[in-house]
């Protein structure tokens, strides 16, 4: 801490705003570190280490945890994101449609799927859909099911985000396009939606982070060994070995992706904030 304190000393007399902020932040860090130390002293590290940090178990997980589990997590997330994005865009446009029934349908979808736990939607896709339509297969096997489930989960949120983005595009843009002879649909595609997407990139990236975590719900669909993603992979290994180290490793793998993504989101948000100034 003494290092940090030293850097907090103002070089010139008087504190700039930045330095004041650094100082107050420094004070907060001190409190935080004290809390962590207290916690660390109180915890039983021997037992924790035994349960969560078995080095040979860690080694045993590689490379599969990356080449199989993380890869599958990313695949599930991306496919779910794409489905959600397309569905979300359609629902957003329906929500903005002058046609009443479209608006109502979109509104009902949003209310239902925004209010349901993702887990229920996975169960629904895994159980109810095959039961309701016997003989039909969701294309793509597990990958298709996950894409559908995650897509259904995220579409409601994305639809609301995209709708807000479209409405944030100034009215004059549509008027200019229409006065040039664009049809409403063409103006949407060429002029409005590209601008709306710039606005919604940060919240959509945020949604990507949420989906990344929700992809763990795949384990409720029943997957083969080859289809396991991080959570399932970690849990299976943990129960095989009666040790929780694999869970910890799986968690770190999530953070490996979500932390940089979160960083990107904040950068994008800062940039978007600047642009609107």
């Amino acid at each position, binding site marked *: 801490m003494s290092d940090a304190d030293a850097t907090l000393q103002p070089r010139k007399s008087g504190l700039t705003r930045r330095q004041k902020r650094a100082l107050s932040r420094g004070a907060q860090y001190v409190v935080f570190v004290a809390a962590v130390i207290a916690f660390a002293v109180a915890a039983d590290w021997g037992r924790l280490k035994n349960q969560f940090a078995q080095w040979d178990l860690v080694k045993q997980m590689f490379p599969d945890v990356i080449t199989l589990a993380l890869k599958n997590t990313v695949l599930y997330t991306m496919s779910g994101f794409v489905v959600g994005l397309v569905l979300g865009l359609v629902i957003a446009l329906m929500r903005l449609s002058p046609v009443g029934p479209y608006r109502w349908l979109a509104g009902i979808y949003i209310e239902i799927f925004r209010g349901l736990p993702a887990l229920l939607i996975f169960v629904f896709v895994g159980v109810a859909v095959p039961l309701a339509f016997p003989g039909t297969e969701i294309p793509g096997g597990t990958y298709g099911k996950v894409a559908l489930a995650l897509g259904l989960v995220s579409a409601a949120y994305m639809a609301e985000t995209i709708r807000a983005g479209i409405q944030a595009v*100034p009215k*004059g*843009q549509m*008027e*200019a*396009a*229409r*006065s*040039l*002879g*664009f*049809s409403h649909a*063409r103006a949407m595609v*060429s*002029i409005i939606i*590209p*601008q709306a997407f*710039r606005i919604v990139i940060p919240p959509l990236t945020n949604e990507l982070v949420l989906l990344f975590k929700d992809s763990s719900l795949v384990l409720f669909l029943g997957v083969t060994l080859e289809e396991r993603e991080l959570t399932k992979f970690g849990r299976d290994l943990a129960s095989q070995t009666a040790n929780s180290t694999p869970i910890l490793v799986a968690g770190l793998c999530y953070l490996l992706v979500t932390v940089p993504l979160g960083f990107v989101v904040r950068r994008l948000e800062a940039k978007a904030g600047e642009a609107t100034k």
Partner: protein
Amino acid sequence: MTNTSSSSGTSTPEIHVRDLHKSFGDNDVLRGIDLEIGQGEVVCVIGPSGSGKSTLLRCVNLLEEPTQGQVFVGGTEVTHPDVDIDAVRRRIGMVFQQFNLFPHLSVTENLTLPQRRVLKRGKEEAAEVAAENLERVGLSEKADAYPSSLSGGQQQRVAIARALAMGPEVMLFDEPTSALDPELVGDVLAVMRRLAHEGMTMMVVTHEMSFAREVADRVVFMDGGVIVEDGAPAQVIGNPSHERTRHFLSRLLDPAMADVEDDVEEGEKGL
């Protein structure tokens, strides 16, 4: 410059507005407008804020749907229920007070995208037409710039070029210089003046009296949703026959009350 020889009477007017009404709810904004604009004629529309000038202009290209009455452009009734609105609008260029350039596209793309998507022109033709029209407004060197990097005056000239690139028969201008810093107004007016001399049919809502006086074939004074006065600039601006016109002009020319847009109501009350 002040005669109307090319206009009404001899051939069908380029723009013909007949008994036009427009209400927003129970706000009767246009209350029976009759107006003819001949081919190649330049008509300036003046009047206090809220008198319905923009609404009139927007009814001509159907950005607003008239409540009653007819509008003809180039002999086509644009208010006819079966008309292809998009096809009509291709023939009518519109320039807005706020420019409304597409911010996600470069200057050139602002000009080429509408040509390609709407007129289905090929890449090269669109680029050629874009270059021509940028040249016309004196902004060839900004072809690759983005709108946000341009001054207001430059943006407005690009907006004019964008409309011209579609090859319109008629150009509508809704207070094209009102959002501009005073020193940038001249460049935009110069472009419009040249366009007028080239024979473009133009309907211009403006507060620039010197422009109206010098360039317009006719000046139309609107107030309260009706046309109060319609005639040669020298007459309407120089020697108005209606008290309302005189009142409007005196306030417009009085520098102490230069901000016409904001003080209309107060001015009315103050009488």
